[in-house]
């Protein structure tokens, strides 16, 4: 198995625009490695640096120091994003487009046109169960449908690596189950999935390995069973690793 996602001593500092405000360290020397075919869960409390890490991996935020690469290519190069799919948290897609038009637009950025694009659009819409709503404007979609059309756009190029930022956030139990099923199917197809989540139950179910970060630093990384060793659930292990003690609070 080769490493396809790597961060090397990644550090991100945010400087406040207000005078006298200290520099905020969002990531502090983060080292991560994800190999092909893995489903990798990225965990941490709110403000731990999960989204900042993903933003660095996608080139949205420039690291203060350190490096990040996808498929061995520096993330600052647009070509590094050729073989990835990305689902951001809480996105409201172009409401003046239909589901099919949205996917055709994203497909054209990957140079997918004609019959090839039609085929991928059909496949992804069937996978996310939106085939019947393909001609409807996105503004008429429910929240769960919007999340699934987001997943469809992330899969339009048949990516080797899928980066999902809290994919089940805000969804009802049925919506969560559908997204989880899709991740499971991608795992069975041998795709690499890197996702951040607060749903520890689903992480425990679908992930091969997890990493836990808190305050911008990596606290633990390894197989789910290794992380859970000595704890009845992943949640207990997580709380222990981030240093949360119930009796203190």
């Amino acid at each position, binding site marked *: 198995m080769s490493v396809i996602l790597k961060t090397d001593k990644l550090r991100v500092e945010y400087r406040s625009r207000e005078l006298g405000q200290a520099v905020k360290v969002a990531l502090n020397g983060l080292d991560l490695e994800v190999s092909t075919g893995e489903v990798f869960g990225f965990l941490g409390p709110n403000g731990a640096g999960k989204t900042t890490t993903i*933003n660095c991996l*996608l*080139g*949205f935020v420039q690291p203060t120091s350190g490096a990040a690469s996808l498929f061995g290519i520096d993330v600052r190069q647009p070509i590094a994003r050729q073989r990835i799919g990305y689902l*951001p948290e809480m*996105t409201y897609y*172009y409401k003046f487009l239909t589901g099919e038009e949205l996917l055709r*637009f994203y497909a054209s950025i990957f140079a997918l046109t004609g019959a090839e694009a039609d085929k991928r659009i059909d496949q992804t819409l069937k996978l996310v169960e939106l085939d019947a709503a393909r001609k409807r404007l996105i503004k008429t979609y429910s929240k769960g449908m919007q999340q699934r059309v*987001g997943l469809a756009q992330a899969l339009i190029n048949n990516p080797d690596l899928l980066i999902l930022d809290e994919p089940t956030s805000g969804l009802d139990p049925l919506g969560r189950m559908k997204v989880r099923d899709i991740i499971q199917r991608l795992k069975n197809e041998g795709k690499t999935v890197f996702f951040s989540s607060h749903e520890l139950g689903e992480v425990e179910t679908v992930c091969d390995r997890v990493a836990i970060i808190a305050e911008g630093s990596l606290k633990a990384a390894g197989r789910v069973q290794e992380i859970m060793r000595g704890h009845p659930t992943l949640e207990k292990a997580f709380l222990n690793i981030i240093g949360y003690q119930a009796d203190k609070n």
Partner: protein
Amino acid sequence: MRNVLAIAKVVLLEMYRRKEFYVLFILTIVICLIMGSINIFNDNQIIRYLKDLCLLLIWVSSLIIAITMTARQIPAEREQRTLLPLLAKPLSRNQLIFGKFLGCWIVCGLALICFYAFFGALAASREHQWPLLHYLQAAFLHWMVLGVVVAMSLLGSLVFAAPSSNSTIIFAICAAIMCVGRYLDQIAAPMHEPARSIVYFIYYAIPHLEIPFGMRNLIVHDWPIIGWNFVFLDALYLLAYLVFFLIAAGLIFRRRAIN
């Protein structure tokens, strides 16, 4: 170029499915038709006033379309968070900026075709003539001006926090240039230093949008068309500003954190 055209196509679809253009177009038509139907003091030359007012309305409407449409492009992408999945694709930020620019500029061109076609039909119904070359020169330079305005608004949308403040500032700048731009050197001449140098600097630095704006007079007063070499020189002059604003927008957007 494929990515740029894909972005531009989405801008076109957005404008096609939104109602702003239709509202402005219908409003312009209604005002022009009402004005065209009256004849104050039985003046035989009333058609000139009608043409002048119609062209002024077309300029104002086209500026409103260009500025408001462009000013919300990038802020809306940020607010709706569609910028994230878009830039997570193999698409550079410069391609995004250029795609947005191209889409907005094409929309402005299509709007101008509708406006000038209506104006031509209205004027022809009263004067029984169709000076196509005049319209072509005026519309072409008008479109070039809108290109500069679109590029300026795109740059403004990266500098100013809210689309409303950006729209207001760009509209005020355009109005100021068109109204007093040509007189700035005369205003500067009697001034004392350093005010004189500052006003002269502004005079030479601003894009002089008032030259194409003055092309209205050719149509209003039925003057002969101007030389095409002058038209292309002015177009080149405006193109230089357009490129400058686009490069500035690209440089600002290149290193901006998106989250």
